[in-house]
């Protein structure tokens, strides 16, 4: 199957006064049409930078190496006008805090009119009809069309963001912690709306989150990031049933859920990305670290239907590998 999105040896570094922050290191990652993939990891693992890199919305001091292919075209090589077209029209965005994307001085109508007419040559009336339909699909009544962002609750703002992301019928939605600031009931509502629309329009979803529960509930595949690299990637069912990487194992065990009988954690703290530990960046916290771990970065190799970057699993590289 042709990949909708693919990154090839993607690295994103930030040059700062305190040194170079290696936020994303050599990431090879693909997403098929219509697929929902969760990108998970803890704060500072590079997952948000990766999402921003795909959208080409990084700060100017970011250095990007490698390729990002969307529908077969390298985004970095596109002229700015083309890129703007892809972003917003072919790729929709949803952020954690809708207020960073909504202009407090513009009504919801203004937001939609501007967005739609930037991308489509339509009359105001037609733009309005498109907007009202998109808003109705996420449960925002037409009477609120002329309201300002501050007149909505957090959940409703996020619904508006979803409507804006979907109004141009994109092929891919990138959602960066879309429900993190919402309560659990509203989180459930938002995820349901997103899932319904995804099914209806056959959208692919890249869900960036620290919440493994919502990945289990919404995604087909999951990629686990640690210190700027993908350490394990594969079908959600397989990885939740039998995580291979010791970090994935530790992360899954540390989730506190209703059936939790005893607490579990990973020793130490997530590393900084200026001077990450040598070799496998997880080795200082890893209960199973052995002699090769601090020496060189383990490659992400295929293993029983998934990919894993850990020397414990480097013995039978050929074994049943299907994911490339």
């Amino acid at each position: 199957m042709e990949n909708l999105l693919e990154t090839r040896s993607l690295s994103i570094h930030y040059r700062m006064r305190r040194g170079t922050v290696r936020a994303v290191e050599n990431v090879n990652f693909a997403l098929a049409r219509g697929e929902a993939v969760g990108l998970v990891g803890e704060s500072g693992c590079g997952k948000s930078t990766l999402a921003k890199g795909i959208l080409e919305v990084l700060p100017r001091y970011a250095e990007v190496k490698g390729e990002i292919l969307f529908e077969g075209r390298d985004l970095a090589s596109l002229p700015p006008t083309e890129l703007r077209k892809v972003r917003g029209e072919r790729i929709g965005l949803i952020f954690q805090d809708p207020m960073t994307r909504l202009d407090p001085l513009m009504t919801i109508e203004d937001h939609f009119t501007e967005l739609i007419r930037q991308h489509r040559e339509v009359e105001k009336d037609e733009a309005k009809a498109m907007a009202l339909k998109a808003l109705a699909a996420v449960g925002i009544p037409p009477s609120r069309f002329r309201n300002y962002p501050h007149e909505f609750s957090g959940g409703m703002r996020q619904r508006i963001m979803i409507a804006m992301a979907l109004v141009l019928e994109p092929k891919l939605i990138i959602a960066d912690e879309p429900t993190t600031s919402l309560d659990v009931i509203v989180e459930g509502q938002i995820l349901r709306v997103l899932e319904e629309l995804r099914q209806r329009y056959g959208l692919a979803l890249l869900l960036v989150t620290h919440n493994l529960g919502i990945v289990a509930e919404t995604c087909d595949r999951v990629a686990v990031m640690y210190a700027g690299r993908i350490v394990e990637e594969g079908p959600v069912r397989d990885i939740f049933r039998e995580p291979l990487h010791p970090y994935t194992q530790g992360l899954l065990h540390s989730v506190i859920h209703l059936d939790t009988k005893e607490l579990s954690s990973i020793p130490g703290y997530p590393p900084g990305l200026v001077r990450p530990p040598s070799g496998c960046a997880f080795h200082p916290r890893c209960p199973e670290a052995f002699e090769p771990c601090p020496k060189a970065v383990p490659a992400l190799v295929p293993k029983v239907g998934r990919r894993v970057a850990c020397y414990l699993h480097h013995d039978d590289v050929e074994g049943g590998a299907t994911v490339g």
Partner: protein
Amino acid sequence: MDNIVSIEGLKVYFAVQKNFLSRLLPGGPKYVRAVDGVSLDIRRGEIYGLVGESGSGKTTLGRAILRLVKPSEGKIVFEGSDISHLKEREVRPLRRRMQIVFQDPHAALNPAMTVGAAIAHPLMIHNQATKEQDAKPNVLRMMDEVGLNPAEDFYHKLPSELSGGQLQRVVIARAMILNPSFIVADEPVSMLDMSVRARILELLLDLKRRHNLTYLFITHDLATAKFLCNRIGIMYLGKIMEEGQASEVYADPKHPYTKALLGAIPIPDPERRTAKSLPRGEIPDAINPPANCCFHPRCPAAIEGCGWEPRDVLNYLEERRTRLVTGGLDKDVRVLGELKRARIDGQTVRFRASGDGPAELLEYLRGIVAEAHGPLFDAVEGISLEDDGVSLRLKPWTDIKEVISDRRRVLCILFQST
């Protein structure tokens, strides 16, 4: 039973700032009813979990107990003495016995103060040390106890040099340094990474055992509360909806709100994906909470007598219009007019006829009510023609009161015998 904290009928109302014009208009001052009549006891040695969504008033309740905010009404008794009306000067000595751990350790610590100075600070405020140097042995011992070791290394560090989990240990050490008996822990792990949360919770449990502490554990996370707490109270719009032994509440939740919260928690197991039954909408404004049972507009188990009022009808009609966007909206707007122009008078809502006159309006509204289902429409008493419009009357509700059901306090009319 020995209660360390005992609260009776506590209300905390915050006046809403109003502009000049609205102050001239009738209606009197408006208040956010953050805590709206809460009674609860916290027993010595227990972990009481106060669980609720943002906007439920749980944080305000925690702060009111510590007298960080002023109660508007009701009584707070701490270790046997009524502290509800103490002046700030009189409250201060009590803070040695009652402390707080905040949610965001980055915001809770002064970025220019070293870890050592921050932990020593309460000792100086309470005149237990005059110089930071005098406090140092004490501070180092406490740092060691909360896992900031080697303590000497951390002592001179600034908050910016520490991770989130380490900062929360500093905040906990600062709360513990005065040897309190009661700690309000307000979402102490919510901002921390999953892989370090468990260790902070273990530290809290450890300190509790060693120092005979009592905790009020405030959280939105029912899973963490289940693991940690002896008893829990579920809070919604300033009121306790359900309270009981944690094990019993989780095994058999009574209140529809408790059930909804439990059902909404994501399960980290892709094999157990199920369709959730979620309440509609979001937590409403605490300035003007829904009548009678404040959960009734969202409640999946609501019945006729829960508290349906005219604005519920208007909200229904507004929401209905989202379904009419693809057809029928123009007619709806023509016949019903702008919904905010409907007039509310007690349990009656009056629509003024526009379009083709009151007869069409009457028929249209009857049609809507006839095809709708649910408790709101069971509560419709009648629709009738008036001079220039149509009025819709709702039946009165059953007044809600707290009842005990299976050793559980429940605020829900489903459990009231009529």
